[in-house]
């Protein structure tokens, strides 16, 4: 049973978008922690 092109595309594109969002989320969390004085 071979994976279809569309299923492969969904898998790869979704994974890439989630990984692309990760650094932004980390930076947002950092800003929120910084504002709350909770970095360390």
């Amino acid at each position, binding site marked *: *049973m*071979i*994976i279809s*092109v569309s299923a*492969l*595309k969904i*898998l*790869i*594109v*979704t*994974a*890439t978008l*989630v*990984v*692309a*969002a*990760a*650094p932004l*989320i*980390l*930076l947002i*969390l*950092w800003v*929120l*922690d910084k504002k*709350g004085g*909770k*970095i*360390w």
Partner: protein
Amino acid sequence: MTGDTAILDANLGWMILALFSVVWVWLGWWLGRRAADLEGFMLAGRKVGLALGTATAMATWVTSNTTMAAPQLALQMGIWGMVGYSLGSIGLILFAPLARRIRALMPNGFTSGDYIRLRYGHTAWRVFLGISLFYAFGWLVSLGMAGGVVINALTGIDYHLGMSVILWVCVAYTLLGGLRAVIGTDFLQSLIILTGVVILAFLALDRVGVEEMHASVIEERPELLNLLFPAAIMFLFNNLLFGIGEIFHSNVWWSRAFAFREGVGFKAYLIAGLFWAPVPIVAGFLALTVPALHLNIPAADMVGPLVAGKLLGEGGAILVFIVIFSALASSLDSLLAATSDLILTDIYKGHVRPQADSAELARAARWVVLGLGLLTWLLCWPRLTTLAELLYFTGAFVASTIWPVAAGLYWRSINPQGATLAMLAGTGIGLASYFLIGFYVAALVSAAVSMLIVLASTWLAPRSFEWGQLNPQPAP
């Protein structure tokens, strides 16, 4: 994998190594300059916030293996290779509630060894220490060796020089700043790794595209896109349990549970797991572009860097070198710090100097980091075995601890004898299956045996444990 595959000039490689080495060591010193006491050095003062907590969990779990072995597995096992690798995230996600429980039950705890000793007594503790230290050394040596091998493969720099540089840089900043240095550098390293991987993925999608990738793989290696690839499916479940075993028992993750601010552990591990899951897929699918790019792959574990070099030329080679260097450092430093904590607390204070006070331990902590770095360096020097072999060998060990660790945090009735036997028999039978069947079943068998023993022994001889016993004394 040898210097024959070099995609980057050695001089450029040295410049990048020098630049990042200076940055990490300076940052380690700067972040750790106020971490003088034992809790500050070992546990970053137990006040790590959500941003740093999430980043350190992610960066530590993204090792050189994630960035190098995920494409390799995709090349060998296809879709299930990279999806199976991404199931490593389940360990992080499942550890989220455990981290909250650990922080609540052991607010003054230092190591995973503390927990096993207080929960199951000295025999189980020693068995656990054997497993944990074997795994830690296996991972440390495989990371140190991977550093040398990867640097050699990418730049042609001699294995011994590359391995020594990356190992001693990590030792230096861990020594200077303890866990604060490790976690602070992990934040930057995680940003570098994630950004680098995404750039490569976007380029691959732009230059090759999924349709062309799919068509060329169907033509040359159709089995890679087969959803019913038996060995790959077995690998998927084995990797899942291996990852859970690694995270549940290892002091790398326990020390963070102790170090995170109250209320942070659950969220940090959950977010880290959710964002880590797609990383092996993004790094792994690069291997599926090989047929379309008409690349000749001399060594399967070089597929990621070679694809990057082909897509981006020298820029791609530099990018992949920086990503791999960051991935290696972020895991190596965490493991150095956590293993040193285990040796200091459970071996030095637990077995050698029970009367040692906090000030003595704070002094000894630096010597332990230095000694561990030296020992790792000596073990890495001969370049004895391949990274994957050494790492999968430990699967039988760590998977045997899943049930004693996790069930012991929630069920009062688990008894020490059952927990000890579960770890011993799980490891033994898991190892036997490793040699008799294959690497891809070792963790699976070990976890199953351990589970059966824990359940049977608890049913036969239940014990009533008082949770307060896990928090008996102030910090050592």
